[in-house]
C-alpha cells in the first residue's frame, strides 16, 4: 500500500472517531453544566465549558477566536464552527475529503456514508447550538459515526488499509479517553471533601453516560457509582472498548500485523505500552497520582504515533533521479 494511502486512511478514521468523541465530550459537558447549582455550588455552567475546552487543549485558541466563554458560543465552536480545526464540522469535512482522495482504497458504501454525513450536516446542524437542539445533533453525529464504522466492518476487505483505519480509531480513542478522565479529575480536585459524594455520583454518572458505559459499569461493579471504579474501568477494563487497555491492546495487535519485522521500533513501543496497561492496577496509578499517570500515558502515546508515521507513512527512498520527498502534512489538529 502507498505511504500516502496509509496516512490518509489512518487520518480518515481518526477524524470519524474524533467527530464522535467531540460529540461525547459536548454531551458530558452539557450534562455537567445542567446539574442544579446546589449540586455544584459556586460552579457556574461556564466552568464546565471551560474544562471541556481545556481538555481539548483549545482554551487559548477559543479565547483568541471567540473571546468570552458562553455555553452557546462554546457549543457552536465545538460542533459547527468552520474556524475550529477540530470542530465536528471540520472532522466531517476532512473525513470526507480524505475519503474522496482515497475512494479507490475504500468501498463505495464507505464513501457514501462519509459523503452523506457531510451533505446532511447543514440540515442536521440547524438549531444545534440551541440548548434544546444539542442532544438531537449529538445523537446524529454518533449515529453517523456508527454507520460508517458498521459499513467499514461489513464491507471492507481485511487488508492493510483496514488495519490502518482500525489503528486510527484505536489511537484516537485512547487519546480521547485520557482527555475525558483529565476533565473529570481536574474537576474532582476542586472538591476535596468526601461530603460531596452526591456530587461525585452525578458527575461520574454523567461521564459514564456520555461514554455509553453505564450498563457496562453496572455489570462490572454492581455498586453505586464510585470514582475509583469508574477510572479503573476507563483505564484497565479490557472489554470496555474505550478503555486504555483495550485501545493499546488493539494498537499493538494491529502493528504486529502491519510491521514486517516483529522487533521493529513500533511493535516494541506499542508492546511496552500495552503491557504496562495490561499488567497495571489502580493502586499503582494512585501511588503515581492519576494526573501524572495520565500525562505520562499521553506522552508515550504521542511517541508511539510518531513512530507509526515514521515507519509506514513516510518513505525515505529516493532515486538517483533526485525526486523530492513529498512534504506531507498529516493533518494533525489536536495533540
Amino acid at each position, binding site marked *: 500500500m502507498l505511504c500516502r494511502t496509509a496516512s490518509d486512511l489512518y487520518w480518515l478514521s481518526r477524524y470519524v472517531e474524533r467527530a464522535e468523541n467531540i460529540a461525547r465530550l459536548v454531551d458530558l459537558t452539557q450534562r455537567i453544566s445542567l446539574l442544579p447549582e446546589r449540586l455544584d455550588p459556586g460552579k457556574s455552567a461556564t466552568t464546565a465549558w471551560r474544562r471541556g475546552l481545556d481538555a481539548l487543549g483549545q482554551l487559548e485558541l477559543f479565547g483568541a477566536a471567540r473571546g468570552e466563554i458562553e455555553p452557546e458560543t462554546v457549543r457552536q465552536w465545538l460542533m459547527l464552527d468552520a474556524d475550529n480545526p477540530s470542530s465536528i464540522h471540520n472532522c466531517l469535512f476532512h473525513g470526507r475529503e480524505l475519503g474522496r482522495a482515497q475512494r479507490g482504497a475504500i468501498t463505495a458504501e464507505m464513501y457514501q456514508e462519509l459523503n452523506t454525513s457531510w451533505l446532511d450536516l447543514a440540515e442536521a446542524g440547524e438549531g444545534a447550538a440551541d440548548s434544546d437542539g444539542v442532544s438531537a445533533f449529538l445523537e446524529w453525529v454518533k449515529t453517523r459515526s456508527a454507520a460508517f464504522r458498521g459499513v467499514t466492518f461489513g464491507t471492507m476487505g481485511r487488508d492493510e488499509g483496514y488495519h490502518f483505519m482500525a489503528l486510527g480509531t484505536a489511537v484516537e480513542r485512547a487519546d480521547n479517553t485520557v482527555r475525558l478522565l483529565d476533565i473529570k479529575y481536574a474537576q474532582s480536585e476542586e472538591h476535596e471533601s468526601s461530603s460531596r459524594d452526591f456530587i461525585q455520583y452525578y458527575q461520574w454518572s454523567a461521564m459514564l453516560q456520555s461514554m455509553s458505559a453505564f450498563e457496562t459499569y453496572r455489570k462490572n461493579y454492581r455498586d453505586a457509582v464510585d470514582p475509583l471504579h469508574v477510572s479503573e474501568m476507563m483505564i484497565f477494563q479490557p472489554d470496555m472498548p474505550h478503555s486504555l487497555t483495550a485501545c493499546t491492546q488493539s494498537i499493538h495487535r494491529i502493528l504486529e500485523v502491519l510491521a514486517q519485522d516483529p522487533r521493529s521500533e513500533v511493535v516494541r513501543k506499542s508492546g511496552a505500552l500495552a503491557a504496562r496497561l495490561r499488567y497495571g492496577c489502580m493502586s499503582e496509578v494512585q501511588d503515581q497520582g492519576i494526573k501524572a499517570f495520565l500525562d505520562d500515558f499521553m506522552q508515550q502515546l504521542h511517541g508511539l504515533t510518531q513512530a507509526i508515521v515514521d515507519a509506514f507513512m513516510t518513505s525515505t527512498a529516493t*532515486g538517483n533521479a533526485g525526486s523530492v520527498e513529498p512534504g506531507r502534512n498529516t493533518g494533525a489538529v489536536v495533540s
Partner: protein
Amino acid sequence: MSARPPYDEMHDAEGTIRPHYARFAEWMNGTQDARIAQKRRQAEISFHRVGITFAVYGEESGGERLIPFDIAPRIIPSGEWKVLEAGLIQRVRALNMFLHDIYHDRRILEFGVLPESLVLRNAQYRPQMQGIDLPNEVYAHIAGIDIVRAGEGEYYVLEDNLRVPSGVSYMLENRKMMMRLFPELFAAQAVAPVEHYPELLLETLQSVAPEGLDEPVAAVLTPGSYNSAYFEHAFLAQQMGVELVEGQDLFVDDETVYMRTTRGPRRVHVIYRRIDDDFLDPQVFRTDSVLGVPGLFSAVAAGRVTLANTFGTGVADDKSIYPYVPEMIRFYLSEDPILLNVPTYRLRQDDDRRYVLEHLDELVVKEAQGAGGYGMLIGPTASKAEIETFRQRILAEPERYIAQPTLSLSTCPTFVESGVAPRHVDLRPYVLSGSETMVVPGGLTRVALREGSLVVNSSQGGGTKDTWVLED
C-alpha cells in the same frame, strides 16, 4: 442552419417509433409520469450520495457539480453498431500505425500523404520519442472517438481523442443507475453489457507491459483529488484493483519506476496516466511541473515501464491532422475508411480560407488544438460581433483554425422541464489497443440540454445518457 429537421433517434420522418425504440416507447406509455419523475429524483439523489461529481474550472474552490443524467437511453440497433465497431477499430489501428510511423521511418511523409510541416512542426509532436520502440507498437492504448449522427442518419467521426480521454466512468455509472432504476427494461430486451470495461482495460495494460514479466504491476497516475476527473481516476483504479498514484508516490531509480509503499519501494511496470504530457516529467517537459515524476521519460525510453497512452500521441488527434485520417487508413491498411470524416476546410489553403471567410455564418470554426468546446465559433447561432472576432483571428493565424459545415446533430428524446423533448446528442465510444484492438458495445452519450444547443460538453452545461447497444 439547414431547413431539414435533424435526424431523430427514436422516430422516423413520419413520426413512427423506430423498431429498436419500440420496447422503450411501450414502457414509457405504460408508466405513470409521477413514477418517472420520482425515478429521476432518485437518480439525482443517488448520484449525489455516491459522489459521482466533477469539479468545474473557474468555480469557487471545491466547486463540485453533478453531470446531469437523463434517464431516456440512447439506443443503437445491433446492425448499426457492427458497422461502428468495425469502423472504430479500423480507425484506431491506423492512428496507432501513423504514430509509430512518424516516430520511426516517416514513410507517410516520404510518400507525401500529408505535409511534413504539419507533423514535425506540430506542438504536440515530441521529437524525444523518435526511434523509441514500444510494446506492440501501440501509442494510444485508450482512445475516445467522438461520433455524431447527421443528415439522414449517417455517422461521422467528429474528433479523435488520443491523449487522456475521459468520461468512461460515466458510461459505467449510468448503466448501473439505469439497471437499478428500471430493471424491467433490461428484462424486456437484450442490452449488450459494458460492465467488463475495467477488466478489458486491465488486460490491455498488462498486455503492453515490458517483456518477460509474469505479473506486471499497473497503476493509475492522477494529478490529484482536485482534478475535475478525479472521480474517474479513482473509480478505474478501484475497479481494476490497482494503485491510484500521484506523482509524489512514484520515483525513478536506474530507469526503473517505483511506488513508495508501506513496505518499501515497489516496482511499477505499466502506468495508465491521466496527466497531460507537459506535466509528466519535469526533466524533459515543463520544468515547473510538480505533478509528474522526474526521470519517467528515461524509464519509458529504456523500455522499463510502459506509459498508456504514451508521450506524443496528441500529434495524431490534432484537428489539423484530422482531415488526413481517411488517407492514413488507405495508406496503412489498404482499406476504404468505414466511418465518414466531417468535410473539413483547411484554412492554411488559400481557396478553402476564401470560402470559409465568405461563409462564416454557416460554418463551425474550431481551434486546431482546442478542446472541451472552448474557443469555438458556431456560425449559425453566433452574433455579428463574434463572427467578426473570428474573422480577424483567422486572418491573423489561419493555421490555428479549421472549419466544418454545421452538422445538424441527431436528437434523442430527453426529459426536460416541460416534459420530453428532442435534444442533440453525440457519442463517445472507447477503443482499447493492446495485443488486439477492441471496443465495448456502447460508450458515453452526451446531450445538449439547452433547446437548440449543439454543445454537449459537460463543462458547458451538457448532460449524459446511458447508451444501449441492442443484441440480436
